[in-house]
């Protein structure tokens, strides 16, 4: 019997290396952001960078184990993992201590477990399992409802923890559902709602409704000879009434929001408010200019101007010390990472792996968009880590498991090749 080739020959090295490089960039950046001259050693575990180093070590060990396991442990027990994390999400509501307004952590003494981070991974598994078992696609409403249910349960539980950022990530699964059968119109409707939301924050509902009415009249005018004129009008009136109700209710909701939430939204649409975070973030980025101030030379990010400089705003430190080049490189690495996973998923003939790969791209993409988006001031400030870069054990562990699991699945591609 021929000796089967070593597992390391079957790994997708470009993907693995990209992920590892991102982790190393993260470590260096955390070191720079939290640099403490009294503790210059990167492995000093009293400092954030020392702790991150330990987490990276743990992730690598875990990754090595996952790569050497059969990927069936993920697919077969997918619902079990999903269920366990759902339980933890419920438990956390009762026993968690409130930190920064969110009740998201279970304090284990040595480690603060954040179940919502792992919920992203288990939801990917759950969805992959459900969709890969389907006999037909998600164009059927009943199947779609089930898939939506898998997403919405953890979504609501995380929302109940006041962890807005993590909850938003679950919305990205819409792209997954679309890929596997959900109608394009739902995606377009989603975009439409987002655009209307932004517009109604910017404009008074009156203008919005008026312009919708004008639009409907114009469309009706150009189609006045059409047989379907009545249909155009009915649809137009329906959409207009939706816009009216929606924009007015956004106004009402804005009144009910907490001050800091309102501030964040108002800052974004240029209506003032307390934009301290965003301004400081832009200042730090701007200070970097083309090639950055250089390693450990950043002042803005280092000198506590930024809150969460090692976690949510870590991209600022990259921007300040490595400039536009550094930012471009990191963005490039993320794009490559996601594209590579999509490419490998499409090649895979196991539907579970294919859906799973898609799912984790959705998660990565949402983190990528929200985190960098808020750093450059395009998205409201929502606390959400940058995958593999931000300081934090739960997040790093969760992403490592996600990626290594996919690498393992991908390495098994030959089994399914017929």
């Amino acid at each position, binding site marked *: 019997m021929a000796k089967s080739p070593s597992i390391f020959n079957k790994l997708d090295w470009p993907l693995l290396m990209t992920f590892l490089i991102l982790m190393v960039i993260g470590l260096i950046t955390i070191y720079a952001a939290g640099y403490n001259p009294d503790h210059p050693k990167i492995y000093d575990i009293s400092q954030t960078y020392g702790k991150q180093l330990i987490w990276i070590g743990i992730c690598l060990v875990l990754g090595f184990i996952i790569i050497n396991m059969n990927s069936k442990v993920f697919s077969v027990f997918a619902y079990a993992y999903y269920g366990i994390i759902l339980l933890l999400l419920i438990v956390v509501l009762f026993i968690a201590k409130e930190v920064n307004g969110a009740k998201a952590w279970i304090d284990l003494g040595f480690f603060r477990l954040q179940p919502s981070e792992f919920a992203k991974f288990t939801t990917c598994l759950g969805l992959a399992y459900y969709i890969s078992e*389907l*006999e*037909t*696609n998600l164009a059927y409403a009943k199947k779609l409802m089930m898939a939506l249910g898998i997403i919405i349960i953890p979504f609501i539980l995380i929302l109940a923890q006041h962890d807005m950022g993590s909850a938003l990530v679950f919305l990205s699964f819409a*792209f997954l559902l*679309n*890929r*596997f*059968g959900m109608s*394009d119109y739902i*995606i377009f409707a989603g975009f439409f709602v987002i655009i209307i939301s932004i517009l109604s924050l910017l404009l008074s509902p009156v203008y919005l409704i008026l312009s919708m009415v004008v639009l409907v009249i114009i469309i009706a005018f150009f189609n006045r000879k059409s047989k379907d004129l009545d249909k155009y009008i009915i649809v137009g009136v329906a959409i207009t009434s939706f816009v009216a109700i929606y924009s007015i209710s956004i106004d009402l909701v804005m009144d009910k929001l907490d001050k800091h939430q309102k501030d964040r939204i108002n800052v974004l649409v240029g209506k003032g408010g307390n934009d*301290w975070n965003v*301004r*400081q973030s*832009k*200042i*730090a*980025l*701007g*200070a*970097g*200019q*083309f090639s950055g101030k250089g390693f450990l030379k950043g*002042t*803005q990010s*280092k*000198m*506590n*101007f*930024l*809150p969460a400089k090692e976690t949510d705003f870590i991209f600022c430190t990259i*921007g300040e010390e490595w*400039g*536009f080049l550094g*930012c*471009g490189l990191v*963005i490039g690495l*993320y*794009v490559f990472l*996601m*594209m590579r996973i*999509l490419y490998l998923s*499409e090649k895979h003939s196991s*539907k579970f792996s294919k859906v799973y790969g*898609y799912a984790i*791209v*959705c998660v990565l*993409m949402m983190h*990528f*968009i929200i985190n*960098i*988006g808020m750093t*450059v*001031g*395009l998205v409201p400030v929502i606390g959400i880590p940058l995958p593999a870069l931000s300081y934090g054990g739960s997040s790093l562990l969760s992403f490592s498991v996600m990626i290594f699991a996919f690498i393992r699945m991908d390495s098994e591609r030959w089994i399914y090749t017929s």
Partner: protein
Amino acid sequence: MQDIFPQRIKMIQGVIIFFSFLFLINLFYIQLIDNKYKIKAKDNAIKELIEYPSRGLIYDRNNKLIVHNTNQFEIMVTNAEVDANLDTSQLCKDLAITQDYFLESMKKARKASRYRPYVFLKYVDDSNYQRFQEHIFKYKGFFGQTRFVRDYPYANGALLFGDVGEIDSSQIKKYADTYTYLSGDYIGKNGIEVYYEDLLRGQRGIRTVVVDALNRVKGSYANGENDNDPIAGKNLQASIDINIQTLGEELLTNKRGSIIAIEPSTGEVLALCNGPTYDPNLLRGGNRNKYYPKLLLNKYKPLYNRAIQGLYPPGSTFKAPSALVALQMGAINPNFAYYCPGYYPIGKKSLKCSHRHAPCRNIEEGLTQSCNPYFCQVFRESIEVSNSKRFQKDYDRWYKNICRFGYRRKLGIDLKNEKRGNVPDTAYYNKIYKNQWRATTVISLGIGQGEILATPLQMANSYCVIANKGYYITPHVIKGIYANGKFEPNTAKKIKVNVPIDKLYFDRVTDGLEMVVQAGTARASKIEGIALCGKTGTAQNPHGEDHSIFVGFAPKVNPKIVIACIVENGGGGGGLAAPIVSLMAERYLKDSLPPASLNKYSSIKNRHLINFQIDE
């Protein structure tokens, strides 16, 4: 199972690419095009710290320090640094604040900024600050900051020296283009403090340091080559003699009124007292907010600077200037005699003389007796010099001459809000009497009653003209401005105004004023060894008892001091105002009060016409 939508991968790929480019474009703009963020970055990491200058000190004419600075402290807090286990009860005890204040202030601090220092508590005094500093290691996130506050060691001259307080936003805006003030800066609010604000203020210093967002100074930037030391405000020398200032305020205890003393040869104000008054230290630092409204609302109006704002009929004190004008106009000669029948007839009515007395044979006797009919006749002669039908022309001449004494104009003292008083002109009378008026209609002007109103400062100033025999110098309270190692004279205020009247007339009137004290209405106010000249006044007013007025100078030859005193509702001029003026003059000229005068001093001090209290 068949995969039917492989092309839909483009949707998610498109979103990823779209956002990546959006971010790159945005970063390109922030990092390479927009300079706004680059500049701010410098501001933040390299911070300019303000160093407050010491405000100029004020000395009196004998170089006694009368206004200086002491330290007060502010406690700052940086919310993000505060320990969750902070011992709040200890902190509240140390700073003598309540738990409620603590919670309220922390809430405000949190709202303002989590990362920037916020003024947690203002106006912390020395002992509280010491206690706080002892335990500072327990109060993570808190630190102290020094501020200068004013101190008035003599506790007097409240409205004269004024006070300082935090600048309000409208004033900041006024100086916005020069960045003179920042929110929270102190600015002069009253008296000398506000008039000489520009000199006293000094200039802020700037220290450029590397700080983090918690405002923790990490070191000096570029070895301090961009730093400016603060420049202390200029020291001023007031013309005030703090001894007689103190005496004057003591004499006005529980009385409404004012005393103003001027050195006639220089126009330097020696004392400017108001009653009732308060300790200016009350308005220091945080107490200002507490006491200012109370003072403002007090029914005796202690914030009203009567010396330069109070408008009173000058009463009989007006007879001396009025006589001088009549003499110079040629309406009378110094030996003008008038038999006082006890009243002065005005049509069917008459104006009474205050007392029975021998006929007045000349101007000296008229003044000595303060005879009302005598001076009504003098006034009538002045405005009917040429012809009783053409009295309006003469009235105009009289009006112009009398105003030369400084009535009906702001004298230009270096204090704000001086009032100009009033002497009616012909236009005014033509208007209210519809041209139907005659000398007798306005006859009460001759005895300083009627429409004529003057401030105590104007009354004193008009007697400076008599003391100087023909001129006055703009009264001023600041004598010197410190420069080049000494006080340089404050030339801005040394303006001489001539009053063209013959010296002979001044001599005769001065003789008369001396007789007033020697044998006339103020004979109880003689000063042992010093010839005090002056004139009593009893101003009738609609607010109750007459105002007691005395204006005089001493000594008779080369007068050193002119004093005007008015005690509201104090009765006749000889009763309160004259002895006050004599005590002031004696104290100033003899450097102390002889035992004989001390009795007079305490009896006046203890005479309470009002019961002035500042409620707690």
